[in-house]
């Protein structure tokens, strides 16, 4: 894993020149909400072209093995690539256009999949050809996921799937979905679950978007009525789905350890202190005019810095050998706390202007802030709620007794 500084700098030069050649300037700094729409809906767009180029190069999935279409880069090279993307306002659209494919499903297939599954699924994810959804939660199985009821019956040449999933991100546009289903109703609840990968292009699957408090509908209810899954699409062993599914959630947490923006990531954000100065004003010494707000803003900025320093420390201590770690729960909770606190501060700072919903009476910043504030409430719920992460920390890191096992 040890690479010299020289090697890294050589890679930096390579990345820089490739990006200069291939990244359309029209997209610089525009990573935000437009990305997914343009890439997916408009095949003639620059965004789609950029996504395709990045995918062909394998750099949308930079650390995945090159033999399956990934970039084959080391962690440190991937960091360099990130820096170079950031430097010119470029971004990786595939992380979004793949749905859960890059952050969760892909890494889990690489870990548990058969050779055949890897060859069929991974290259498509790398190229950005497929959007993956995930069916985990059900109306009666949220934090207590293991009580899920959706079931799959063995019909000899296929699995017959029935049940309902909820909070399935992007199920309305997804081509494939990974689903946790009960395959042995008589086993203790964690022991009768399997992970199935299902092609969504079939009549047995219906989706219905759920409108959230922020106005958008990123999640769906997904219904399976005699849907069909192929026999070769079980990820991991029969009835071992809980282990596979938990592993996938670790990848999810890992992917949620870094973002504290709560505004959907990407793009250049106005610095909070500048916003505060603009709305609150300063005294003759240049200090924010509201001393109470100033202290809380300082506290927030300290917490944000503490989180980002912890992120760096975890990477440094792993010495380039980044793997899914227990620290993910700590980082996820810290990240959501910081992001939600930031959003609340923005609202407080901007006063009534920070509560606009639409129209000319409000700036883009103000409208984005209110949507981000609402959307960001989900950060401490999805991927295992704040409380579930604390359960994980208590049990897996601190070695305290399990407290959610009742039958």
């Amino acid at each position, binding site marked *: 894993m040890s690479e010299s500084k020289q090697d890294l700098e050589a890679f930096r030069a390579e990345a820089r020149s490739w990006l200069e050649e291939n990244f359309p300037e029209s997209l610089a700094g525009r990573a935000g909400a437009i990305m997914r729409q343009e890439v997916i809906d408009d095949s003639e767009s620059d965004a789609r072209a950029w996504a395709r180029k990045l995918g062909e190069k394998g750099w949308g999935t930079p650390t995945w093995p090159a033999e399956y279409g990934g970039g084959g880069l080391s962690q440190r090279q991937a960091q360099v690539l990130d820096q170079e993307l950031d430097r010119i306002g470029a971004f990786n659209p595939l992380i979004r256009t793949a749905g859960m494919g890059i952050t969760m499903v892909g890494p889990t297939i690489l870990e548990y999949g058969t050779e055949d599954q890897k060859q069929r699924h991974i290259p498509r994810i790398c190229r950005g050809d497929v959007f993956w959804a995930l069916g985990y939660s059900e109306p009666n199985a949220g934090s207590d996921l293991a009580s899920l009821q959706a079931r799959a019956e063995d019909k000899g040449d296929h699995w017959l799937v029935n049940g309902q999933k909820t909070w399935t991100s992007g199920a309305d546009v997804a081509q494939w979905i990974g689903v946790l289903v009960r395959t042995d109703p008589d086993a203790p609840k964690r022991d009768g679950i399997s992970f199935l990968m299902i092609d969504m292009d079939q009549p047995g699957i219906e989706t219905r978007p759920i409108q959230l408090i922020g106005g958008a509908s990123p999640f769906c209810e997904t219904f399976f009525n005699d849907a069909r899954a192929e026999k070769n699409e079980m990820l991991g062993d029969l009835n071992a789905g809980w282990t596979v599914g938990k592993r996938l959630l670790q990848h999810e947490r890992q992917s949620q350890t870094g973002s504290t923006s709560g505004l959907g990531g990407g793009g250049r954000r106005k610095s909070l202190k500048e916003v505060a100065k603009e709305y609150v004003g300063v005294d003759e010494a240049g200090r924010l005019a509201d001393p109470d707000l100033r202290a809380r803003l300082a506290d927030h900025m300290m917490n944000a810095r503490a*989180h980002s320093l*912890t992120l760096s*420390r975890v990477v*440094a201590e792993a010495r380039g050998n980044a793997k899914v770690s227990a620290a993910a729960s700590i980082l996820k909770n810290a990240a959501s706390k910081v992001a939600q606190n930031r959003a609340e501060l923005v609202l407080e700072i901007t006063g009534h202007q920070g509560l606009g919903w639409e129209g000319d009476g409000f700036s883009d910043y103000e409208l984005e802030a209110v949507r981000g504030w609402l959307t960001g409430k989900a950060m401490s719920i999805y991927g295992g709620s704040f409380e579930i992460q604390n359960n994980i920390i208590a049990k897996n*890191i*601190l*070695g*305290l*007794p399990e407290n959610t096992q009742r039958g």
Partner: protein
Amino acid sequence: MAALSEEQQLLKEQAKTWAQEEAPVAKFREMRDSGNEYGFDKATWESMREMGWAGVLVPEAFGGVEMGCLTFGVVLEELGRQLTASPLVASGLVGASALVLGGSEAQKQDWLPRIAEGSAILTLALDESPRHAPLRTALSAERAGDGFRLRGEKVHVLEGLAADALVVAARTSGSPGEAAGISLFLVEAAAAGVNRQRLATADSRGYARISFDGAEVAPEALLGELDGGATLLDAVLDRARAGLAAEMLGVAGQSFDMTLDYLKNRVQFGQVIGGFQALGHRAATLFTEMEMARSCVEAALQALDDGADDAPALCSLAKAKAGDFLHHMSNELIQIHGGIGMTDEFDAGLYLKRARALEATFGSSAFHRDRYATLLGF
């Protein structure tokens, strides 16, 4: 960003073993009960001197090993775990930093070798009011012949009674509240006109009130620039703050371990109490805070070693986050232990008292939030 080197890991183990064997918390309790007026055990300090830690920040040319702040922090953290009381912070960290960063060649020659081997103790005499406020320095240094005459009083001087010499912040011009006009002087503690009085604090460590009643010092006693001492003082204080933050991390870390141990062993309602979610979540929250604080402390120490531009902000960050965590942790230490935590026989009270003393030293969390905001320009 810091990941400890092998050498630092080794030193950490060494300091941990030494503290557990030579200066466990029971030793501190013994010292307290003995009514020792210096606030540390001489024999423990002798043993610590042999470890060479007083010279960690001192250049080799002056008899030290110059291993840097992060390395020193590793040692301080382990000593913090056992509440080890010694002049290491006052002398090896603060005093040594003042000389290394601002001393003349002659001052360095004179003092650094003795500080490095621990045969002399140097401390900073700064605060004049209950709360840390460097710019409010009012103690006056008036011209007297070639030299200066000092008048005023310093309070809560760490190891003030044991010190052989003092770095005194004084006002040579301007008025309290202004940075310009502060000068630092290196003053022998035994000089005429320097009077020391022990302060018996809840923490039982060595604190003193020191009055300067027309004490005369030679021109060579000036440390750094005349009237321009505030910048040097700030740099010295940043080392002190980051080092203290490491010690605080140790005090809090041990408090956490004691609490976790109790959660795993105390049985009520037929089960160990750590199985109750209300307590498990509190432990998880404390652990998260501890990890965040550690990142800040290591980053600050590393930034000092690298001479990074944002070192001052990181030092304030470290002192505030370590302080916030220690405050929370020391209260939970008592609460989660319940009645046993209230007894003097159990160690929790010693950790609580040390916690507050360290929090107040070189700026509370509130002081550092204010400073952080100022440094970041709002």
